[in-house]
């Protein structure tokens, strides 16, 4: 994993775990790796990973079970996708529209790209 960009590292780790759930590496009900394991894998401070996991818990993407550790919630994929969709519409689309205006691109041109 390459850390960069403007987001705090804990949010980048949050995204990283979401991607691994979306890719099917972790299915609903599966145990996810522990904070320690992911910290070692990424070479990151365990406290930073903990912050990412706290957010994943808050968003009900993962939850804890005694004796098991963290596992993936039932509708984790749907929650991640709906959050990403919201982010796309609120942040990426306005940026995209701004660039279209800047370059003088008409909506028809965009539609014609989609065959």
């Amino acid at each position, binding site marked *: 994993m390459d*850390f960069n*960009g*403007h*987001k*705090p*590292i804990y*949010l*980048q780790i949050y995204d990283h775990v979401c991607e691994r759930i979306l890719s099917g590496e972790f299915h609903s009900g599966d145990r996810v790796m522990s904070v*320690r394991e992911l*910290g*070692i*894998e*990424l*070479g*990151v*401070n*365990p*406290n*930073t990973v903990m*912050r990412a996991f706290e957010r994943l818990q808050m968003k009900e993407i993962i939850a804890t079970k005694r004796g098991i550790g963290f596992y993936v919630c039932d509708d984790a994929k749907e929650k991640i996708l709906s959050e990403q969709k919201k982010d796309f519409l609120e942040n990426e689309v306005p940026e995209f529209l701004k660039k279209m205006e800047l370059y003088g691109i008409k909506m028809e041109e965009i539609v014609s790209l989609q065959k």
Partner: protein
Amino acid sequence: MIKINNLDFAYRNTQVFKNISLEFEKGNIYGLLGENGVGKTTLLKLICGLQKPQHGSVTVDGLIPSMRQPDFLQNVYFLPEEVITEDTTPEKFIQKIGDFYPHYDFALFNELMKELEVDLSKKFNELSHGQKKKALLACALSLKTDYLFLDEPTNGLDIPSKALFRKVISKYCTDESTIIISTHQVKDVENLIDPIVILDRDDVLMNASFAEIIDKIYFEYGPERLQDAYYTEMLPGGYINVMPNTEHEESNVNIEALFNAVMKNKETIKNLMK
């Protein structure tokens, strides 16, 4: 917990610390930063009992380091920057000192030597600088002390070893351990160190976790140099502006830019972080 209260320390006529107070809490990997000669190594020596405060106090879990009691010494390890060149193998060295440390783990030593790819058959004086550093790191970690102080641990390590270094330190850290890494090579320990302690001549400018830094300071990556920034630096593709976080937005901490911002606005940022 390490507690430093109203500490004064000087070497002959050179004042290093004047009335500084600072705490280090368990379960953290601290990054100790500061320009050359501000006393990073001296601070580590004071905490592990190699130097004695002239005024004020240093305590580690209530024990006074400079009294050098066995209870204290068996739970602390300081890995200095200069490497030893003893005419012995790392294995013989660790077997010699290991008995003084109750949690010492020889199997872990072997595991680390293998992981860090150090030739077990060679003596310290036959190893390259980087190999020596790695062998000594394996020794230090296998003692499993709660307090571990590393002075410039990544100097001389090759690129893959630096990534490995971050992994082994992350693995070492527990709720009970306090690790302090003194370094100028912040890129080597980025995402590993948190909180950040910044020392200045006679003073402590910052002792803050990433969460606290993100809360107060905003790192803006953009196309222009901003006027009210604490510090601005040109990067490939734009500028990084270190700003007060007035909008309560979260950004990615750039430790180098943070350090430069603190050095340029000592009092302002010191007050901001209080």
